[in-house]
């Protein structure tokens, strides 16, 4: 009887393992790669087409595509990693470089990238590649553990039609507004058009999670110091910028009020043409092209006390799994997805991302037939002044998320920025210390 049980168990287990190995085996002499990715529908289409072209030019490689819904992607990927079934090629977040390198999830693909005949590494944005370099202690240096799928510079957009209707001179595309000028212009554009006592049009309406960074940075503040060990949200520069951000609603009333709308809904207002200024990412271009009934363009973010504009660049990486049996083919696929000119063109045509190739990007920016006109602003952010998110430097993002967890009272004017950061800084510091400790522990293994 026991024997029977053992037999059944072994059959079941054998069933499991044979299924599990299908991703890495050789299929009739062919190399099979598993590629796990996520994206919007247009992106998925563009990626599938790119992968097909890759298969055509690499006849010995077959790519098995695993699409995962964006909100489940991280969970699925981490579950796969925990189960030691790392996909051969996969998308991942740059904030995870350290953790994945330390625990041997990512493969060092430097030799494949530098030795590639098809793709010139110099043609991919250096700032993009730097996000995936890590020498064991410092990010941005050393071996390459991935290539950017894309770079997402978050620029400020404005409703051109609204400016023209109000007779206000269009903003200069090279000189940022000062904080005061920005409030002034926004006030002029916050109006009750039909005279019913309710405002129909506002200067702006920013989401604190995604739009506070440019204000803080351009005012000389930051969430973390250069060494990545101290939380600096309690500096005067930071406090001033945060207060300025909150005052847009509570003092200057250039945004929809709390009862009128909060965070999420201002996107809808921008689409309806009720906001003068709103952040625009390259991923918005396809939707805006279809939905906006007004002209829009890009301008630099308002500049605080440093006098210089600031903005963040998001990114998603394409990495190669450390356990892959076909490192060469996997690295080639990663390179192809990141930098192949033809593949890039397909993604750019779908208007879901910027070109990774500097050559393609420059042509694209100069092409006036694609809106918005000042696409150069996106490239300027990448080339000159864009930054990564503060949490990209650290092992986990918990300390950074803590800042936003309890921020609402400040946005509602129930608490001052100074009071808030005094409370938040020690809590964030504690979580950052824990992340640093966690990193040390992981590095020991």
């Amino acid at each position, binding site marked *: *009887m026991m024997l*029977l*049980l053992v037999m*059944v*168990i072994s059959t*079941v287990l054998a069933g499991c393992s044979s299924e599990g190995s299908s991703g890495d085996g050789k299929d009739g002499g062919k190399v099979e790669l598993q590629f796990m990715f996520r994206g919007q529908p247009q992106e998925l289409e563009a990626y599938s087409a790119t992968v097909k072209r890759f298969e055509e030019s690499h006849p010995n490689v077959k790519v098995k595509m695993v699409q995962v819904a964006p*909100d489940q992607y*991280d*969970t699925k990927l*981490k*579950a796969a*990693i*925990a189960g030691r079934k790392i996909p051969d090629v996969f998308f991942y977040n740059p904030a995870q470089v350290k*953790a*994945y390198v*330390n*625990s*041997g*999830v990512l493969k060092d693909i430097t030799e494949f990238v530098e030795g590639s005949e098809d793709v010139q590494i110099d043609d991919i944005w250096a700032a993009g590649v730097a996000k995936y370099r890590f020498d064991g202690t410092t990010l941005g240096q050393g071996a390459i553990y991935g290539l950017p799928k894309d770079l997402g510079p978050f620029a400020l957009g404005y409703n051109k039609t609204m400016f023209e209707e109000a007779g206000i001179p269009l903003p200069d595309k090279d000189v940022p507004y000062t904080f005061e000028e920005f409030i002034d212009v926004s006030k002029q554009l916050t109006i009750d058009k039909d005279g019913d006592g309710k405002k129909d049009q506002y200067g702006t309406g920013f989401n604190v*999670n995604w739009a506070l960074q440019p204000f803080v940075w351009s005012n000389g503040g930051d969430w973390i110091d250069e060494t990545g060990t101290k939380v600096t949200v309690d500096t005067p520069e930071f406090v001033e910028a945060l207060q300025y951000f909150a005052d847009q609603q509570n003092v200057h009333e250039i945004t929809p009020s*709390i*009862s*009128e*709308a*909060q*965070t*999420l*809904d201002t996107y*809808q*207002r921008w689409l309806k043409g009720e906001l003068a200024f709103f952040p625009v990412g390259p991923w918005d271009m396809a939707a805006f092209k279809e939905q906006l009934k007004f002209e829009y363009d890009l301008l630099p973010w308002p500049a605080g006390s440093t006098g210089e504009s600031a903005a963040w660049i998001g990114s998603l990486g394409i990495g190669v799994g450390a356990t892959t049996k076909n490192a060469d083919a996997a690295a080639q696929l990663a390179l192809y997805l990141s930098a192949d000119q033809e593949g890039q063109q397909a993604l750019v045509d779908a208007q879901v991302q910027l070109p990774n190739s500097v050559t393609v990007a420059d042509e694209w920016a100069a092409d006036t037939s694609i809106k918005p006109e000042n696409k150069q602003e996106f490239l300027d952010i990448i080339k000159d002044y864009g930054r990564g998110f503060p949490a990209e430097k650290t*092992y*986990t*993002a*918990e300390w950074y*998320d803590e800042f*936003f*967890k*309890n921020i*609402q*009272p400040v946005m509602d004017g129930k608490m001052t920025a100074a009071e808030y950061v005094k409370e938040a800084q020690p809590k964030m510091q504690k979580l950052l210390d824990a992340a640093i400790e*966690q990193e040390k*522990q*992981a590095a020991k*293994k």
Partner: protein
Amino acid sequence: MKATTSKLHRTEERNAWLFIAAPILGFLIFALVPLIYSIYGAFTNWDGLGQMTFIGLENFINLFQDEYFYKSMYNTIFMMLGIPVGIVLALLLALGLNRGIPGTNTFRVLYYIPVVSSIAAIAILWQWAYNGDYGLVNQFLAIFGIEGPNWLQNTSTVKPALIIMAVWKGLGYTMLLYLAALQSVPKSFYEAAKLDGANAFKSFLYITLPMVKPVTFFIVVTSIIGGAQIFAEINVMTPTGGPEYSSASVVFYVWQKAFGNFQLGYASAMALVLGLFIFIITLIQFKINEKSSFDLD
């Protein structure tokens, strides 16, 4: 002759074991092994990527000093307020449908649709309904001149909003159970009560309620177990855990720790505490049920 019988027996026996083996193996592989693994994980600093190092009770010590653990526990228990509301509503509905009013079947189906629908789809639908600007709920309130809040962005309304949705979703299931229970109450009881001069309310109090008590008990126990594990609707409707973390449940926090912050050991410890909590609550309910049944007899 003897040999054939025993051969037949043996075949039957083997088949029987095979049939039994399937669910037992399923349980071993997909429930017991992960369970033991996670209990062990609770005593390690496992990050879900590398090796597990045994760290004793450290996770538990940290856990009981973690304000977000308490907050998510509080939120979870608070959201269980929907359970009694749901039970009362379901019983009332079942009573109504049990009277044989026309269209009973249609109503049963209508109330049951949310139960079988995907929770993610429902959450997205309600997220839209709760939208402060153009949501259905506030548009409805506007008819009466009430300016509704931005339900999911407000610390004081986000939990009630989630409760309302959960009650709505669970109503059909509870109602159907009650309906079955009501139909199994012998009509003669009511007739006897009527002869003794009991009014409708008294019959309800002294016949209906005690007769459906086992069902009530079942619903209370399963709802509390389910309620303690609420996750999907929170994850879809308030992906950051709500304003000031006011809608995060324990399972949501466990998930954030495990998959957002590489702290699978800590998350396992939390899951273990939650599991114990559910076990104790259920045990207490069984004890209370035993006692009160005894009293009734």
